[in-house]
């Protein structure tokens, strides 16, 4: 880009950023929280909010995520309870991004300490200080993620979880979307202490526009499981950032299912900092219609010996839907014996739908095994005919093949009963997708 154009772009970005910031106000908090917010705000100003000409936003238009006013999103009643409702869980309910203490369970569970973000931020001394905005800030290099910094600065609610044991049940966050023009910014902080283990579930559309950041610090020998469902409001928008730091012999597994929504950008930034750590991140996405746009952007950094990372993303796209995958594995110098795997695949049910993929490997160690693959394909006509010849109508046969295609991603969910619940719900959604 010529210098003049570069300067022009910087000016455009600065103006757009200031427009957005002018429409917001920083929530209050204690010294450390104000400091973290202030630093994040400075980062936002320094970077500027994403612009369509930014390389990292080449495939996804950021305007509706960055502009001051959230685009309206019609409410949607799927006529069914949110996922995980029958599960034994610690249940927290957010309405358009605000924790509803009455609808939620009490914040007590053996093995964890859980607080509302604002309560943690009101305290002068809090462990979350070492994580809040810290992992997000680490994740700004080498690629900038200004919407995550914006989140750190302005997040108005969220939960702060310290895992010290092995709680008997998962924590489940249900995000209700109840207002057409809600604009929610949530920030969760999780620290899984040495040897501890937890499962976090998330479900629901959250808001008309949703910006969510979750920072997860997984200590040595600790385990964090994350399963979320982003459904099913057709018009909602979401940008999410998951930032994870993994200690020695720790495990991080995250799975996301996305159905509907006009715009979803899920960024996941993982740093393997301790030897023998394992990180899996996977997603299954079903998109329908030319206003559907779904983007998985993943960045995994191997900075320790003998770590394993897996990225498995599958998208089914029809009627002009767009899917994006930007995935990178960075193996730093000295990160020997790295086992890195990345696959992104799309099933395109018609010629109007498209899948844009940018898989990347960057390796500075010489004794590693890394592989990546990306494919786009149509439905298997032979299999479709086989099913139809047995009496299964085309639409139902297609659904069956769609589920089969997504199975590889869904198998990444460790807990079989959760995987089954996801498959069952997905199958119902496919059947009624037009509704």
């Amino acid at each position: 880009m010529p210098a003049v154009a570069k300067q022009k772009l910087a000016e455009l970005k600065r103006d757009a950023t200031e427009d957005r910031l002018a429409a917001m106000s920083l929530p209050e908090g204690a010294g450390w929280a104000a400091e973290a917010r202030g630093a994040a705000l400075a980062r936002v100003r320094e970077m500027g909010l994403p612009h369509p000409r930014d390389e990292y936003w080449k495939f996804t238009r950021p305007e509706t995520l960055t502009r001051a006013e959230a685009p309206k999103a019609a409410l949607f009643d799927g006529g069914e309870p949110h996922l995980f409702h029958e599960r034994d869980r610690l249940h927290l309910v957010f309405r358009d991004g605000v924790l509803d203490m009455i609808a939620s369970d009490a914040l007590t569970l053996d093995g964890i300490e859980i607080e509302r973000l604002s309560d943690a931020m009101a305290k002068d001394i809090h462990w979350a200080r070492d994580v809040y905005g810290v992992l997000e800030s680490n994740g700004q290099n080498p690629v900038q993620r200004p919407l995550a910094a914006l989140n750190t600065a302005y997040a108005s609610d969220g939960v702060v979880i310290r895992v010290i044991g092995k709680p008997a049940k998962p924590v489940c966050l249900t995000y209700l979307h109840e207002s057409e023009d809600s604009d929610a910014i949530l920030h969760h902080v999780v620290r899984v202490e040495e040897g501890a283990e937890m499962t976090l579930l998330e479900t629901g559309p959250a808001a008309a526009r949703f910006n969510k950041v979750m920072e997860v610090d997984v200590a040595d020998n600790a385990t964090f499981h994350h399963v979320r469902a982003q459904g099913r409001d057709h018009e909602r928008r979401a940008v999410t950032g998951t930032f994870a730091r993994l200690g020695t012999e720790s495990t991080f597994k995250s799975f996301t299912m996305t159905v509907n929504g006009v715009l979803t950008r899920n960024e996941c930034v993982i740093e393997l900092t301790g030897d023998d750590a394992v990180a899996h991140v996977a997603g299954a996405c079903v998109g329908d219609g030319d206003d559907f746009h779904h983007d998985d952007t993943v960045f995994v950094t191997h900075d320790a010996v003998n770590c394993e990372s897996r990225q498995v993303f599958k998208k089914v796209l029809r009627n002009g839907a767009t899917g994006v995958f930007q995935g990178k594995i960075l193996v730093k110098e000295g990160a020997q014996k790295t086992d890195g795997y990345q696959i992104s695949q799309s099933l395109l049910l018609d010629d109007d739908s498209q899948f844009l993929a940018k898989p990347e490997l960057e390796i500075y160690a010489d004794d590693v095994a890394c592989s990546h693959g990306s494919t786009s394909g149509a439905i298997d006509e032979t299999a479709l005919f086989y099913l139809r010849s047995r009496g299964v109508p085309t639409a139902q046969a297609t659904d069956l093949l769609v589920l089969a295609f997504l199975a590889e991603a869904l198998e990444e969910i460790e807990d079989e009963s959760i995987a089954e619940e996801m498959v069952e719900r997905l199958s119902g959604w496919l059947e009624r997708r037009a509704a």
Partner: protein
Amino acid sequence: MLQINNLHVKLEEEDKQILKGVDLTVEAGKVHAIMGPNGSGKSTLSYVLSGREGYEVTDGSVTLEGEDVLELEPEERAALGIFLAFQYPVEIPGVGNMTFLRTALNAQRKAKGQEEMSAADFLKLIREKAKDLKIDADMLKRPVNVGFSGGEKKRNEILQMAVLEPKMCILDETDSGLDVDAMKLVADGVNALRSEGRGFLVITHYQRLLDHIVPDVVHIMADGRIVKTGGPELALEVEKNGYGDILAEVA
């Protein structure tokens, strides 16, 4: 039961005429065999009957119990009672064999206005049918035909037939790729399904399958037509002398 009149079919892509006037009637309760050299149009006939894309019917008609078959989609033909046992059963990774069978059975029941079968009843049914065909629990659990041996695939076809209980069974080269024991197992499965109300059309290149599934009528197909029809002895003649004599005789 199945009435084929003057059926003319060409390949859509190549504009090549494959069937050039097939006339055939299969009565309920009867087993008809079609034999013929490679390229005579046997498999095309089976595909056209099942509704596979890529074939254009240029003339003639096909009815099952008086209903026009050619107008129907493949799934409607299945619900009407047509079943094709594939020469090359299709592998479907990610779809469990049980799920496949149950989905097919319930789709057909739904199309006929019947209630869907409960999971428990289905399990009972499938266990009973699978046992006769020596299909074990593992084969039922695995994805459809994935990693199945040739014999397992063909047994799986017959299992589907046994579960779906079609009126008109078409077996396309079911003996291909089978050793003697597997063929016996498959043939036993087919014979167990022979009944008053069910017609069979067994397409085969060799006579040996017909030792096990003894046909009532044997047709010889060549160059897109039925050129000779007879009893089981016709199959033996082919076995002994090849197709050459018959083709020379009708030429």
